[in-house]
């Protein structure tokens, strides 16, 4: 009789342990603060800029006229995240007919949003996105972006041969319909590097993921030119 009881308990443990184990071993969909707060200026909560004006216009808190430094900065050509072995060529990318950002068809390559700030510009978010996977090509350049953690180092190689270092501030998985594109693609505000790929549950009927995985990082002067 205890044999059946033991079997019942054992099987119950298996039934619980299987999903729990999956849950514990999967890469966390988020790390660090929400990406929106990571996009804001460092150490900003007290907002010493101008106490007289309400905080409705965060853009004006940054140096005036800083937005359009772009155009002078060399284009990014390479993206590396050593800890998760991401290493991809960067292409300049624009917009698709449906209004979404172009992601290079070659899943091994990633795209920099060429209409927005460039990595190295003094203000705004430079956006680089790449495939997590593609049906005909398998794993994409950003397959392991979901494994990135706060503090990870990112390197961006520029067309002139120089290298920019970044440090990850936040990672978040966000439902695509709620992606805060205005903030992620902001052309003013603190300088940030924003990496975007797909993630979350896959919807086979749409051949598409439900979510975007977003990683926000800030320039890390200590790692420059390493």
């Amino acid at each position, binding site marked *: *009789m205890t044999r*059946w*009881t033991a*079997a*019942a*308990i054992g*099987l*119950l443990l*298996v*039934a*619980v342990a*299987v*999903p729990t184990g*999956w849950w514990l071993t999967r890469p966390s*969909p988020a790390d660090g603060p929400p990406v929106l707060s990571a996009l804001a200026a460092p150490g900003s909560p007290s907002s010493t800029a101008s106490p007289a*004006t309400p905080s409705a*216009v965060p853009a*004006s808190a940054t140096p005036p006229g800083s*937005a*359009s430094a772009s155009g002078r900065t060399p284009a990014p050509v390479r993206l590396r995240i050593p800890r998760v072995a991401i290493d991809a060529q960067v292409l300049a990318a*624009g*917009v698709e007919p449906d*209004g*979404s*950002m172009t*992601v290079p068809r070659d899943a091994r390559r990633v795209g920099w*949003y060429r*209409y927005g700030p460039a990595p190295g510009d003094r203000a705004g978010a430079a956006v680089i*996105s790449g*495939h*997590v*996977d*593609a*049906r005909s*090509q*398998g*794993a994409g350049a*950003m*397959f392991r972006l*979901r494994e990135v953690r706060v503090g990870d180092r990112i390197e961006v190689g520029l067309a002139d041969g120089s290298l920019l270092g970044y440090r990850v501030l936040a990672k978040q*998985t966000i439902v*695509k319909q709620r*992606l805060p*594109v*205005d903030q*992620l*693609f902001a*052309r003013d505000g603190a300088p940030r590097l924003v990496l*975007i*790929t*797909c*993630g979350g*549950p*896959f919807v*086979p009927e749409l*051949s*598409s*993921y439900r*979510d*975007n995985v977003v990683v926000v990082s800030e320039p890390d002067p200590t790692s420059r030119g390493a």
Partner: protein
Amino acid sequence: MRRLTALALTAGLAGSTLLGLAATPASAAGTSDVSILHGVPGLTVDVYANGAKLLSNFTPGTLTDPVKLPENTYDLAVFPAGQGPTGTPAIEAKGVKVPAGANLTVVAHLDAAGKPVLTPFVNDTSKVAPGKARLTVRHTAAAPAVDVRANGAAAFKGLTNPNEAKADLPAGSITADVVLAGTGTVAIGPANLDLAEGSNTIVYAWGSAGDKNLKLATQTISGLHSAPAGVHSGTAGLVDDQLPVALVGLSAAAAAGSLLALRRALTVRRTSRG
């Protein structure tokens, strides 16, 4: 470009609300951005607004930076440089309404018959779709109706003085020229235009066809960009972040087995007691 320095320098106290308020911060309510373009050939001028000097030694082909003007009605007058605001102005426009929250360009130019006039244009500062640029063309020349061609194809047809035409186009460089309407006779150009993404590039045709001094002036209003609608970057489902079906099945089977074993255990206990 040239700054309206005279505006800030002569800012007085009473009597010149225009000048006094012009230096208020960008966030002030009830103002409009106003630029001024001089498109009358051969005439260096001073510009007055409600009797106060707005611009000195303003030369043809010059476009000012935008300044904030308070919402009001203005009498604008243009006099030959140094003459002072007395006598009959060279050009005059009374009751020019500057609303709140608009972006205007006031153009001193020739009408189709060659008479100097002042025309206020409202600049379209609505958002431009990502990847696009807005092109506005304004006919402010003493010339008949024209067609504007972009990369050789007619983009705007039959444009007359003092009217404008506009379109949102893919960002990038184009070659534009102006031809007499319905003909291939080039009046101005060709000129290369860099249509920057998220901006409104405003091109003015000015001068006089009769005097063979037709020219183009360009004004650019940036910051009209909008963000892409989203990012679609995965089609294979290799990192599908939900419990795999196999594991769901395994867990369900174990749960079912657990129930069966439990029932058996209870049955065995009952029979052994009975």
